[in-house]
């Protein structure tokens, strides 16, 4: 995201400018998607079903990414997100079986927070390297979930769920809602395949039909995190620990406590992401369910420049590609055209800004995608599952100079070192 705002602009006009550019981007994307849909006839690229699947795939990644943001904003790198997420899947299943689905979500948060606590003790109290501790937590999380599943789920069998050595399925799901009237009306409109109008209707239909309350909770947590971290003095202090802990401590901030809180919240959010996977994305716990989504969350966080807005965009993109294997191969093929258009639009944007080199590189990539679209009939499914990872690598390679992580991120801080 470009932030070339002249310093003399006031706060209000700056906010307006942001809002306007976001509106322009959203509108541009909408028109492009709609155009591609009409041109290729692949109406599934933004049908109600596709969007619902994409939202469901987005939420776990989003929770992991926002969890990562909490931790890293306080200066603690958390690559244990995957392990905390795995613990969350187990916690969700256990608490849902014995207490109910909402308690299941709480249980997921609790188990995730336990993973966070281990990370906090190791990194904050004992000053262990953050990556090392994260790697260990991923090992422990994976092993613990397998072990606990075998120990607690093996013999379970009742109307509340069926257990096994590696699973606990058939659990009660958290409730969902359909907005009467709006849902049907929007669905009908979406099926007309009109330019832009039907695309908007599909979005409306997707969020008003069989929408899980947990999905709402996830988006509420994102908004809440953004508000806490950027609009409260608590958040300011927490972020100051990630930027300059010495300065923060000299101003009376209890750096250790803030880091603990941040890492605990981080684990809890990742745990909720795991819980979502077990209870909303599927109907129960299966070992290996997270399948690297904690790492994708980490990627989404970096993609989003450690900020909630960017994370939302990154997580949606990764969630959408994550849900693609369920779609037909012709849909995926149509997306190539969309990517080509997007890259060329971005190249033009760079050209206007006078950055000729990067514009040229982007244009070449855009043309290559266009050629790929024109010369082939379908895209191998394996390639679509690689998309989030390749996208992250490309973003890092082309935009890492623009990304700015918290200044003291990953550094070990010892209490009293402010002197």
């Amino acid at each position, binding site marked *: 995201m470009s932030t070339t705002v002249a310093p003399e602009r006031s706060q209000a006009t700056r906010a307006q400018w942001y809002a306007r550019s976001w509106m322009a981007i959203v509108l541009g994307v909408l028109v492009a998607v709609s155009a591609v849909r009409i041109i290729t006839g692949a109406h599934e690229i933004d049908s109600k079903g596709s969007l619902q699947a994409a939202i469901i795939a987005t939420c776990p990644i989003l929770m992991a990414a926002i969890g990562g943001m909490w931790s890293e904003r306080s200066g603690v790198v958390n690559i244990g997100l995957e392990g905390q997420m795995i613990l969350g899947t187990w916690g969700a299943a256990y608490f849902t079986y014995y207490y109910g689905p909402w308690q299941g979500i709480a249980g997921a948060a609790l188990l995730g927070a336990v993973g966070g606590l281990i990370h906090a003790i190791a990194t904050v109290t004992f000053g262990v390297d953050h990556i090392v501790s994260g790697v260990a937590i991923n090992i*422990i999380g994976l092993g613990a979930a397998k072990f606990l599943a075998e120990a607690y789920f093996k013999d379970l069998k009742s109307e509340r769920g069926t257990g096994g050595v590696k699973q606990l399925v058939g659990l009660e799901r958290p409730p969902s809602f359909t907005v009467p009237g709006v849902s049907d009306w929007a669905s009908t409109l979406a099926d007309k395949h009109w330019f832009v109008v039907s695309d908007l209707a599909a979005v409306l239909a997707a969020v008003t039909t069989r929408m899980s309350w947990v999905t709402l909770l996830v988006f509420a947590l994102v908004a809440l995190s953004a508000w806490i971290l950027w609009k409260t003095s608590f958040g300011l202090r927490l972020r100051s620990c990630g930027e300059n802990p010495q300065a923060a401590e000299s101003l009376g901030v209890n750096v250790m406590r803030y880091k603990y809180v941040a890492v605990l919240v981080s684990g809890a959010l990742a745990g909720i992401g795991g819980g979502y996977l077990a209870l909303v994305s599927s109907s129960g716990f299966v070992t290996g369910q997270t399948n690297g989504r904690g790492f994708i969350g980490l990627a989404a966080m970096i993609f989003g420049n450690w900020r909630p807005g960017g994370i939302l965009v990154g997580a949606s993109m990764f969630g959408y590609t994550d849900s693609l294997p369920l779609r037909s191969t012709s849909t995926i093929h149509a997306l190539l055209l969309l990517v080509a258009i997007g890259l060329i639009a971005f190249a033009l944007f760079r050209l206007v800004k006078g950055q000729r080199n990067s514009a040229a590189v982007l244009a070449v990539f855009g043309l290559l995608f266009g050629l790929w679209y024109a010369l082939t009939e379908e895209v191998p499914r394996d390639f679509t599952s690689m998309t989030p*990872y390749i996208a992250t690598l490309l973003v890092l390679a082309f935009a890492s100079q623009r990304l700015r992580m918290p200044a003291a991120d990953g550094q070990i801080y010892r209490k009293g070192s402010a002197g």
Partner: protein
Amino acid sequence: MSIVSKVFTALLAPLVAVVVAMIITSVVVAASGNPPMDFWSIIFSRPADRVFVNIVNQSSMIFLSALAAAIGFRMNLFNIGVEGQYTLASYTAAAFAGAAFLPGKLNIFVSLLIAIAVGAIWAGIAGVLKVTRGVSEVISTIMLNAIGITMAGYLLLNYGQKYGSGRRTTPLEASSEFQGWEPLGSAAGAVWSLVILALLAGVAFSVLINRTRFGFDLRATGMSESAAVASGVKVNRMVVIAMMLSGGIAGLIWMPALFNGAHYYGPTFQAGLGFTGIAVALLGRNRPLGIFFGALLFAFLNEQSNRLTLETDISANVVQITQGVIVLAVVVAYEVVRRYKAAAEQRAVTKQLGENRPTDGEAVPA
């Protein structure tokens, strides 16, 4: 410091870690409703001959994997991507060896070189991205893991031969396989011939790191990058070379198994060794000897735990918790010992200077 106290402080951290891991494992086992003694009596029983051979074989792969991670760690490069590097390298080498372009043992030799090359290139991407575009190698190797594993799956699906419900590469010809060595009789199975690779790699690692200019530069960069730059080390070049060396060793991880009984790359491929290797490298403090014992310990726990499933209600997965806790506890213990030594040193200095100023025992912040 005398030799005795040096040895003591070196062994203190791993010992404390193992004890902590034993306590936590006992608690976990007890919490699942099983007597911890059942668990320990099986783990500490004398391994059967067959298990002995398996431990040797498994630890050779873990050792290679840990060595790959350790090269990077010695210069503060986190190559988390060993998993992807060895998966891709194993597929490529197995596919090449299966195609039998070359006769007999020459085929094996060239396949090994290919495995090294593929691993090195895959890791090299992360190295190049780091020095040219400033991309953190932690993130890029995690991404490359996923891409590499997916790619190996894609290649296998499209170019492998059908085998049962899955796919595999063309099996090796008998002339391109080793027979192994059967020290405990044929019933116990064979120690893989290429276990020797692990020993060679360990010696080469030790010589390279401790006895060459390159190794000195590598360690210097790891300890203080600014000091290394000041003394003329070309850090960017070092990063790429170290990543490629790391990836090259990673490429070899599964080779002992391939040329001694695995026959092909397919459903029987042993995944996950890359992450185990990272853990063992940390456990062994990135030194070959430490890694050697760490690899033996991990292989021992893995193999002995197989009996748990047969003889008790305890899940064999509990050893994964044990292993994770050992790693975490060992790094914590090293840190505590380091802080204690730093504080002791400070006190000694203060005493020698003859000052009566009280110290708070805090180390100088890094």
